């Protein structure tokens, strides 16, 4: 790192007299490495480079679980990058409290973020003690069921309209040699799929009581028992997935080896990259076709405190670029996520994105678990659900008991 920055410094001294411009290199770390994601992040880099600065890409492969520890240790270890992705919410909470992150309130006021960013809960998640610390870049909703039309055609049944129909269709799919529901082996995927099932089947109120108020009684109650029954179905339907990464699981849906997958809207980028068309080759059911609510989790960029003045300037420029309408459209179209502002034109959006935008416009939104729970509680949930989905013997009742225990001590 030192050598690289030394070289960069040398290069700058050489280049400065010639160009005399204000080009500043800013390293940006993120974990967007799958095909669709990489294409989207290239749009951001392009937009930032157009401002006369230089985006130095610091992609970290291996999903957020691998990337976040590296980012955090770089920031706490005194080697901060120019900007870094986090899921906004509570992942960077302590870094902010410790004063390691930069206050963006000025930039936000100048850009009038309070007015344009929608829904307002996005900016709330960036706000700690009245100050804004991050620039939201997209809305990521987990609540999608992606279905392969080809797989259902092969099995000779119509494409399901909701979760129950998919469960009913499972035997026919299995007979045709198709895995009904692809769930990748990484722990966060089983965890996310459960949260989606819970929001869809138990509804918004139960969801907020359990994760918002940490009400262990509700978590152990009959409403949740239904969800665990559904999770048991999902577990049975996911047998034979045998892949690890989420995009490999999505690929099973793309190639018709799996009937469906519960995955966030980032899966859409993969469908697009494979040249599939929404509505014809694949279908999407927001809220599993049961409860049309989408959560407003998502990605945001945080800016560590830097001593270098030129870089601090560049940070401001980057923050402005991120919420800029043009960058918002270019990025989110490639990524399949929803923009953080309502005043942009997404005419090019496909069927699935339009469904999402519709729900957003109706205001059917909810805070997601990344915003409601600490990383610690999320990890405990991940441990539980990855065990549950892989286990042949763990009963839904046992799982619910342990779930209630986690909620009782959650923060």
């Amino acid at each position, binding site marked *: 790192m030192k050598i690289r920055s030394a070289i960069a410094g040398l290069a700058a001294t050489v280049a400065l007299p010639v160009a005399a411009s204000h080009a500043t290199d800013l390293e940006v770390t993120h974990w967007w490495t799958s095909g669709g994601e990489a294409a989207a992040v290239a749009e951001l880099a392009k937009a930032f480079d157009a401002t006369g600065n230089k985006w130095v890409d610091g992609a970290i492969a291996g999903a957020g*679980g691998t990337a*976040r*520890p590296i980012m*955090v*240790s770089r920031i*706490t270890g005194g080697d901060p990058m120019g900007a870094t992705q986090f899921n906004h919410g509570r*992942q960077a*909470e*302590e*870094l902010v409290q*410790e004063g390691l992150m930069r206050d963006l309130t000025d930039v936000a006021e100048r850009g009038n973020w309070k007015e344009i960013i929608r829904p307002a809960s996005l900016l709330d998640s960036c706000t700690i003690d009245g100050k804004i610390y991050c620039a939201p870049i997209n809305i990521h909703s987990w609540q999608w069921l992606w279905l392969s039309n080809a797989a259902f055609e092969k099995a000779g049944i119509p494409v399901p309209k909701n979760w129950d129909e998919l469960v009913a269709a499972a035997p026919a799919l299995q007979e045709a040699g198709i895995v009904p529901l692809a769930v990748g*082996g*990484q*722990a966060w995927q089983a965890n996310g799929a459960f949260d989606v099932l819970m929001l869809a089947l138990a509804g918004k109120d139960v969801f907020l009581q359990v994760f918002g108020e940490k009400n262990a009684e509700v978590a152990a109650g009959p409403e949740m028992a239904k969800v665990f029954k559904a999770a048991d179905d999902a577990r049975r339907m996911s047998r034979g997935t*045998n892949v*690890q990464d989420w995009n490999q699981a999505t690929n099973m849906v793309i190639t018709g080896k799996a009937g469906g997958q519960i995955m966030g809207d980032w899966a859409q980028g993969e469908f697009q990259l494979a040249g599939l068309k929404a509505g014809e080759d694949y279908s999407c059911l927001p809220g599993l076709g049961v409860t049309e609510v989408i959560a407003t989790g998502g990605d945001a960029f945080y800016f560590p405190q830097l001593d270098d003045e030129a870089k601090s300037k560049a940070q401001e420029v980057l923050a402005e670029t991120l919420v800029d309408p043009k960058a918002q459209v270019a990025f989110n179209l490639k990524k399949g996520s929803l923009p953080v502002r309502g005043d942009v034109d997404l005419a090019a959006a496909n069927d699935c994105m339009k469904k999402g935008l519709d729900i957003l416009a109706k205001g059917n939104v909810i805070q997601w678990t990344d915003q409601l729970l*600490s*990383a*610690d509680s*999320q*990890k*405990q949930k991940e*441990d*539980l659900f*990855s*065990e*549950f*989905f*892989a*286990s*042949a013997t763990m009963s839904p009742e046992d799982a619910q008991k*342990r779930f209630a225990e986690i909620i009782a*001590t959650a923060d």
Partner: protein
Amino acid sequence: MTGQATGRATTRAHPGRPGRLTRNLSAKIASIPMMLTAVVVFLGGTLWTVLYSFTSSKLLPRLKFVGLDQYERLWAAPRWLVSIENLAIYGIFSLIFSMVIGFVLAALMDQKIRFENTFRTIFLYPFALSFIVTGLVWQWLLNPEHGVQSVVRAMGWAGFSFDPLYNSSIVIYGILIAALWQGTGLVMCLMLAGLRGIDEDIWKASRVDGIPMWKTYLFVVIPMMRPVFVTTLVIIASGIVRVYDLVVAQTSGGPGIASEVPAKYVYDYMFQAQNLGQGFAASTMMLITVAIIIVPWAYLEFSGGRKRV
């Protein structure tokens, strides 16, 4: 710099005495940096970790004591219990198998065979690979669609099933296979060195007495190789306690949590869950495990005045 200054100060403090302190002075001065590292980094770091394991530190270390809460939570966590169980299975089997296989290979090598160099190189080669590479190679070999299972099926046994990495109840043995493949070569070399250290006359004497070869190995040679065995034991045991990268590369703890190990618990809770206190509590438990192994060994090896075989 600091080291030298300290050294000089020590010399000046005892001007007239050429005693124990000044003997091999340059060697002692040279070792001061390492001693400081050992005390500050290892010992200091250890004490710091143990201290903070009694706090509720989250992402950043904070001195807010919560007593034994972290330990209570640790020992109630199903994942930690699975990790401990896995470590026990993995530890016992890898200890036994790598010792036995390593010794047998070494004994076979010791029969003045032809191409000994070649064989020795072949057996030792896996050790040159990192655990990550080993893990990936064995992940492919044990993958039901590409590895051993598909090869055997292609040869005609259609019902053959061997997919330890996708079966919760035997996944730890899949990891064990990879670990043995990687580690046995080293054990073999250590054992071979031990065997070569046995005096030819012992063998001649046992031949004169008409003792069968296996008996000579079992009752004469092995007891004489005690120091080699102890060293090997410590090397293997410390490798067992800290096993991490192999699991990450091969299964990343899956399916579910079936192949989790303590070191991975520590990492995941310290960094992914942003709960330092919990991670420190788990690593303190690991330290205790290591201490249980190391202390008796150190006692046996370094307690003075004991007769040597």
